[in-house]
């Protein structure tokens, strides 16, 4: 049992089932403020479902989910949770394909989200400058006015990370950020995430062990919906049960 105070994300005894299939079983997971954590685990281990629960897409059947130590996330929907300060990057890059790169970022920029504020919002120079900064960070400056559909896979991943930055959340959930990237891109991404982690709390889900090693953070291994092992990458990867899950059977 860990004290909730001082945590940015706190899951305790969380379970969820789909038609009898237990996707998450009695999962407990704690992330301290400012921490970056990598989550690994084989397919179907419940990694994405866990993100769904945190971001309000799926309601847990039981268990506690707290953000920032005090906010009960099970009582909020996706939009609320996003405005509370949790940003999410999806496994499959999801950007707004028919909008330009700049428009994608502009939608993500922190600003009032209600219909009438958006309706009467004006593009200000402040916003444009912030967009330029982010474009610089994610190396998409030359693609500013291009339609997002025409970006390469890796560029879409980066654009999505850029959107996360624009949102300026307290906690970032990043699902498989380097899937389909070249080695050089992967390294670059790891460097970028470490940069971000300096000022944000981050949870990264990734299969790529090389990338996880690059991140150099505490690792949690999930299996069949609960935590199998936790610790440094070396500790986890030498855990017999983890080896069994990944290699055995």
């Amino acid at each position, binding site marked *: 049992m860990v004290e909730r105070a001082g945590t940015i994300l706190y899951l305790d005894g969380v379970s969820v089932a*789909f*038609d009898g*299939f237990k*996707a998450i079983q009695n999962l407990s997971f704690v992330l301290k403020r400012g921490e970056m954590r990598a989550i690994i685990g084989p397919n179907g281990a419940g990694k*994405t*479902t866990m993100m769904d629960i945190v971001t309000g897409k799926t309601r847990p059947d039981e268990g506690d989910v707290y953000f920032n130590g005090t906010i009960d996330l099970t009582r909020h929907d996706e939009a609320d949770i996003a405005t509370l300060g949790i940003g999410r990057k999806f496994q499959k890059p999801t950007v707004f394909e028919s909008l330009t790169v700049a428009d994608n970022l502009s939608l993500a920029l922190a600003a009032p989200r209600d219909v009438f504020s958006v309706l009467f919002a004006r593009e200000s120079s402040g916003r444009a400058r912030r967009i330029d900064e982010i474009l610089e960070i994610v190396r998409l400056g030359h693609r500013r006015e291009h339609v997002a559909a025409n970006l390469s896979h890796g560029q879409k991943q980066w654009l999505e990370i850029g959107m996360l930055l624009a949102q300026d959340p307290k906690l970032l959930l990043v699902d498989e950020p380097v899937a389909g990237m070249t080695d050089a891109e992967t390294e670059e991404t790891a460097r970028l995430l470490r940069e971000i982690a300096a000022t944000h709390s981050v949870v990264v889900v990734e299969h790529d062990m090389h990338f996880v090693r690059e991140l150099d953070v505490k690792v949690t291994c999930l299996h069949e919906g609960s935590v199998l092992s936790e610790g440094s990458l070396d500790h986890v990867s030498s855990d017999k049960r983890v080896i069994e899950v990944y290699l055995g059977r």
Partner: protein
Amino acid sequence: MRLAGPLTFAVAIILSLAGVAHSQEKPLREIVNSFAEARNFNQTEEIVAELGATGDPAVVPVLRALSEGDLHVRKSDNQVFIVSGRGKTLTIIDPLTGEMVGEEGKRALSKIRVNNGLRRLIRDTIGGLALGSPDPAARLRAARTLISNPDASSLPAIEAALEKETDPEVAAGMMRARAAAILVSERPDAEKSEAITAVAAISTQDALSLLLGFRGQATGELREQVDRAIARVERVQSYWAMAQNVWYGLSLGSVLLLAAIGLAITFGVMGVINMAHGEMVMIGAYVTFVVQEIIRTSAPWLFDWSLAIALPLAFLTAGAIGYALERGIIRFLYGRPLETLLATWGVSLILQQAVRTIFGPTNREVGSPSWMSGAFEIGQLTITWNRLYIVLFALAVFAVLLFVLNRTSFGLQMRAVTQNRRMAAAMGIRTPRVDAMTFALGSGVAGLAGVALSQIDNVSPNLGQGYIIDSFMVVVFGGVGNLWGTFVGALTLGIANKFLEPYAGAVLGKILVLVFIILFIQKRPRGLFALKGRAVEA
């Protein structure tokens, strides 16, 4: 005068039933011919009573003809005949033997006039006569007629008949007729009290109106008893009414099931809304029409088999059109469900107009085979054969589809594609073929529905339009990917519709059901029996 007739009649019946030989009376023919001398309704009435008094069932056709205005006098010889036919020349028939005698000009005949009072007397007389009929079924019918038209004066006749009755079922019927008659008679209260119980046991609408009529004159304990009896009958009536509603609802539900189930299959497997589905139903109905036309002109003896012949043909025709539709249009639109909806709507317009051009815009006559016409009764339920067959047919179609989906390899492939198209494709299932066959199957089933609907609806180019929205509602309500959802959805909506109708009227009932579904889908956006999990969200 009103009472004179029935009284004479009653006395006469008693006499006849008591075994007084009518041989001593005038011969039948003489009495019948005496109609020729009747100068007014009173005299005719007396003759009717006299005929009734003979107790001879042979007079029944005479009386019936009289009541229907078919009894005529030949002016030349004052002989009485039953006539048939129309126009200037009529066929004349011997009233007692029923043999054709010949033809006679209309002017040579004069009709024996009847009024409503006479008709009532004739009806009762026939009823009384039938009480003495040698045929138990006829006696039972007579007893039932007397329950619906109770008459104190027929009481002695009933009681006499009851004494002689040996058949227990007929006796029970007569007991009830007697009880009904007692309620409108001057008998003592004790007998009436028994009669109330007996009448209440009948529990029909007739019994209820009888009791309600009696209530007005009842006092004291009798009044209380009749009130209780009325309450009881009303309760039983409401049960029967409910049963009748359930039946109507099942009947409507099975029609919806037939119309919707093909739609559910295509929607479930392919996520495609086929707006031309109603037209497949319509085509099935027109196939039935064509089959019947061919049979009528070239092989009339096959008519009773026409539906059996139409079924496979309708299935194949609609299925083939469905297959062509999938191969020609829909396969280019996968992943764009809204576009598919529009394209199939276009196809539905084309099919409608094509049928209108070929067969004309008016309703086409589709006949029912003899085994589908008529009705039968269970208690107070009236069930028509065609509705019953449609319910059974819908269940059979459902069972076959369930079998195809759950027990055949094609069904397995279909279910695999429903659950996870890409995975199924990766497993080597040829999804395009499954799609085409599924679409053909769904359309074929719609064709089958068309054959059934041709029996209860107008066969016109607009036939399908009437069902398409209801079918959607069933699919949406029941949920996708599970035939049982469609089953439950169809029957629920059918019954809900029929239960709302008595309170809200047919149109408002339908509106309420639509509003209910609109609200329901917002609570459960994927229907009653929805698949859950991550795969569905994608």
